[in-house]
């Protein structure tokens, strides 16, 4: 039943599924791209008002500080949340065709990834406003951390997409889970403003080293190799766990729909 599928076809599947997601998202318009930036920017504004203006946190360049963590975070949380309906939404394809269904998930994440890449100029824009510039560390750091993040997002998403067929309200749990995780990740705060005894808790969250690596690159122009390795190891573990869940349920996808 498992046939060998030529690499070219896999590549084309990924390309087409990614393109579909992007087209649907931007509705074939450049304005669509601007619209999709509006959501994280509005969110940043809210955090800026709440924490900088009202609560007066002592973090400099706070807008930039938030955006540098929020954009990569959204890559993760959008992927995982969208993956919940990824298989359910393609029920009839799953029941009738034999292409590898995990490609649906990879297409979804690739589209989020491209969206993230397209939003990097916004980060650069804010850097320049604050009198900073991209550094050579970006060239090495970004491709590496993005790879680690892809693995992590893919692992979570594969597991969620498959398991959601069997536990239909997983979808809602995932929404709650990512919201909680957001506050357990150093996005709107820095590690040095929280008490030492909570550091361990926060570092147990695989998203923490991920976001810290991004912040190092974007805010300080340095690539923290330790955080990266930590993220990468997590990414590999999460990816293979997610794939194992998918592999286990793969044969039953069609009958659960």
């Amino acid at each position: 039943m498992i046939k060998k599928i030529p690499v070219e076809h896999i590549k084309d599947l990924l390309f087409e599924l990614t393109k579909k997601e992007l087209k649907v998202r931007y509705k074939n318009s450049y304005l669509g791209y601007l619209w999709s930036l509006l959501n994280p920017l509005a969110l940043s504004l809210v955090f800026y008002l709440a924490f900088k203006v009202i609560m007066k946190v002592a973090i400099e360049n706070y807008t930039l500080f938030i955006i540098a963590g929020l954009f990569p975070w959204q890559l993760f949380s959008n992927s995982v949340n969208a993956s919940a309906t990824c298989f359910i939404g393609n029920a009839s394809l799953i029941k009738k065709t034999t292409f590898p269904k995990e490609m649906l998930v990879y297409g979804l994440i690739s589209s989020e990834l491209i969206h993230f890449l397209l939003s990097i100029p916004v980060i650069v824009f804010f850097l320049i406003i604050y009198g900073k510039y991209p550094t050579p560390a970006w060239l090495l750091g970004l491709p590496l951390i993005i790879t680690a993040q892809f693995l992590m997002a893919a692992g979570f998403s594969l597991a969620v997409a498959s398991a959601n067929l069997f536990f239909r309200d997983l979808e809602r749990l995932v929404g709650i889970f990512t919201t909680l995780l957001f506050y357990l990740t150093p996005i709107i705060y820095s590690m040095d403003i929280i008490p030492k005894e909570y550091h361990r808790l926060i570092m147990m969250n695989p998203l923490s080293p991920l976001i810290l690596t991004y912040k190092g690159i974007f805010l300080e122009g340095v690539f923290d190799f330790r955080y990266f390795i930590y993220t990468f190891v997590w990414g590999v573990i999460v990816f293979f766990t997610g794939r194992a869940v998918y592999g286990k349920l793969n044969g039953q996808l069609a009958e659960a729909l």
Partner: protein
Amino acid sequence: MSEAAIRFEGVSKYYPLYHHMVRGFKSFLFNMPSAIREMRNSRFLALEGLSFEVKAGQSMGIIGKNGAGKSTILALIAGVMRPTRGRVEVAGRITSLLELGSGFHPDLTGKENIILNGVLLGLTRREVIKRMDGIIDFSGIEESIDQPVRTYSTGMQARLGFSIVAHMDPEILLIDEILSVGDIEFQGKCHRRILEFKEKGVTMVFVSHSMGSVRMVCDSAMWLDERTIRMIGEAEEVVSAYAGGA
């Protein structure tokens, strides 16, 4: 030529029933032991002890009431499900005619959907693009091909869907009740194309409620009733028996 392209040997298919889980995670957690027991035991018998074969190059029609198990047979042939008992053997590259619009994205144009669908059905991009003109031409909807599919009528979607499949090169073609949507002209075109496939030696399994189509297209037919084969044999005979005294 007389080799079996599809062979079922004592095939039974149970569907597991996921009610309790679909009902909710909470109810599952709180009733864990009974829920797991229920999960093991609650299953639905959709097909029981089916044995038949379809020889390479032959077409078989499957007829029977809604819920008789026709789509389940196709899913077993396509390999997207496994039989609970028995063996399913299939020799050849399979193409399924998708349900109406199921592979289409409403916001993409007809052309974009052709490429997406073609790739999902197993062609490479290059192959689809090479066949693009033929597909558009066959569909007869050139004027709308650059419009989003959401603006298409049901019939136009059916045209597009069938045109894509008509330009694939299947060895085994699975068709599940779909051809009745287009207008008479297009139905005729579909039938001719299916007969062309037949001439080329494509094996077909054809689920339909249109006895006329089954008569025209199929060599043999199977009447499925209450999860088992009620009658199997020459298309003409099975169709008459079904139409006469179902």
